[in-house]
């Protein structure tokens, strides 16, 4: 196991973990406002396909990213209408949104399967370009990767250090109490969904425009559900989400390393580690009754007339 291969694992983990981190941050915002969004998978697929298609047409990856972000926010507005305005069941609405995303993305992407795009350019940080090419090429990242951790810090700041974040968390704990103290749960939840959807769109954009540089049906491969698990794993906290995302993608990257060094462990079994870990963590908390979930998560706010 050489230094190079270890660095390779880290590099791969960072590449595949970025889309997870953005999406997890988005879901953290949803859930902090009291909404479980099981439709993330669909939202991501729509964003990934739309962003990819626009990049392929225009040749401008930044335009593609922008479209993906907007697509994510707008798709989530459907969920907002269903669960906030119409007070529909959150799980059922989310799963419907997932199926919607399956369909819409297949339609958008159908003529772009196998298309070549101009991906997000990869930039070497100044200083690293002094390294031998073999090393510096491992750490040539695109802009979305460099922005991922700052984004997590920004979300933390928004949620825990601003009035808006306080209001959002208050709605997530108790919409009625938040309403009584002069906040509008409807508006706040719509904002949370739009903002969270944009983040999921950003994650999806990184997946299709920067990381895989391709589009194929169902390409998100369950990342929407992984994000839901990671939100729980990171206890609804944006900064812990960084480690959650790295842990997951690290497990994926680690198996590449094991394979290259001839260790016989099935990559599939390693794939289950993050889910199993989340389950174990949940059981451990359950025993000590230290649940950190927003109190009114999943509950319908009926409105206070």
């Amino acid at each position, binding site marked *: 196991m050489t230094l190079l291969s270890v660095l390779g694992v880290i590099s791969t983990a960072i590449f595949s973990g970025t889309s997870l981190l953005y999406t997890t941050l988005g879901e953290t915002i949803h859930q902090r406002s009291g909404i479980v969004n099981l439709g993330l998978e669909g939202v991501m697929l729509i964003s990934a396909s739309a962003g990819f298609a626009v990049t392929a047409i225009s040749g401008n990856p930044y335009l593609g990213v922008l479209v993906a972000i907007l697509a994510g926010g707008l798709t989530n507005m459907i969920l907002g209408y269903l669960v906030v305005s119409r007070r529909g069941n959150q799980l059922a609405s989310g799963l419907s*949104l997932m199926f919607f995303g399956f369909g819409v993305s297949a339609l958008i992407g159908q003529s772009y399967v196998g298309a070549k795009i101009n991906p997000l350019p990869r930039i070497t940080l100044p200083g690293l370009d002094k390294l031998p090419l073999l090393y510096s090429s491992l750490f040539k990242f695109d802009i979305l990767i460099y922005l991922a951790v700052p984004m997590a810090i920004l979300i933390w700041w928004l949620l825990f250090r601003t009035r808006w974040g306080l209001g959002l968390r208050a709605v997530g704990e108790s919409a009625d109490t938040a309403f009584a103290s002069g906040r509008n749960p409807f508006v706040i939840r719509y904002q949370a969904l739009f903002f969270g959807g944009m983040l999921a769109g950003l994650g999806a954009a990184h997946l299709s425009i920067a990381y895989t540089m391709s589009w194929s049906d169902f390409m998100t491969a369950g990342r929407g559900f992984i994000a839901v698990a990671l939100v729980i794993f990171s206890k609804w906290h944006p900064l812990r989400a960084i480690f959650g995302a790295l842990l997951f993608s690290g497990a994926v990257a680690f198996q590449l390393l094991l394979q290259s060094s001839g260790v016989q462990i099935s990559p599939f079994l390693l794939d289950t580690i993050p889910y199993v870990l989340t389950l174990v963590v949940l059981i451990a908390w359950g025993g000590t009754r230290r649940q950190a979930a927003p109190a009114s998560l999943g509950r319908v706010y009926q409105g206070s007339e």
Partner: protein
Amino acid sequence: MPQQPNSDNKKQNPLLMKIVNSVFRYVLMILFVLVLFGVILWISGTDPIQSYKDIFEATLGSSYGFSEVIVGMTPILFTALAVAFPSKIILINVGGEGQMYMGAMFATWGALTFDTWPIWALLPLMFFLSILGGSLWALIPGYLKSRGLVNETITTLLLNSIAPILVAYAVFGFWHSPMDTNKTANFVDAARLPTFYGTRVELSFIIALVLLVIFWLFIRYTKWGLEMRAIGANPQAAKRNGIPVAKYYIVVMCIGGAIAGMAGMSQVSGYYGVLLSGFSRGLGFMGFLISWLAGGDPIGIFITSFIVGIIFTGGNLLQITQGIPFAVIYILLAFTLFVVLARPTFLKGNE
């Protein structure tokens, strides 16, 4: 309040008005969804009128088409029931997908290991194994819920993600046929569910129907059904009245998982005849939605599954005749769900 005699024509026949009203609403809802999806088809360069004509002819328009609808609805009947049964004691089983995968995996193990057995021994064994696989997978959330450790919604969701990986592990790792990497060899004939009259409708459809009837009778007429309804109404009160609520959580969840496991059996032994890695894209989730739409009611489950069966069969057809991806039909499905979700009173007929 004393009843007032009404001279108003509308109020004289409230039941009829109610029926007319709800039929009108249904028709409006269906039209709305069809027009919306038609616009999508039109934008994507497909003739919507022709598409709908094709879908109708390929589903309700012929007896073979009708049988294909039944083929499409069979696994969903199982996965919907797998959600409906636990929902009676307010257990939210979102894990039908994973339980189905485990059922399929266990049944496949039987089919591959005992491939020399005669059909009358092998099929019951495979059914037993699929039930075992599904219920073991549901035992985890059931147990954790009964101990008050973890909410079953989260557990079932997590287990959903693990089960398809385990199936992929088995298929890619050591079960794949010499020709393929992502699926097993075709099952021997003795491991295939019998079909009826030259259609693809297989035995598990009958089993699903029987289970629906048993479910209805069980909840309504047995002591256990009564106790389940008591738990569903108020778990705390049921506990104080000596009903073993924790035991019910485990057993009922396992039965739900067992039923979902049979959906896996119907897929590998009936529909495909092989175990294909990633064979389902949301059949389990579909079951959750159907059970939810039907309010856990057996007749509602049947009708809703039938409608979804039509949509799925139509999707298969559009893929062939119009060359659009199968997944596009999910848009029609989603529009239908959106309309129902946006107006929950539609189905109940009272506003």
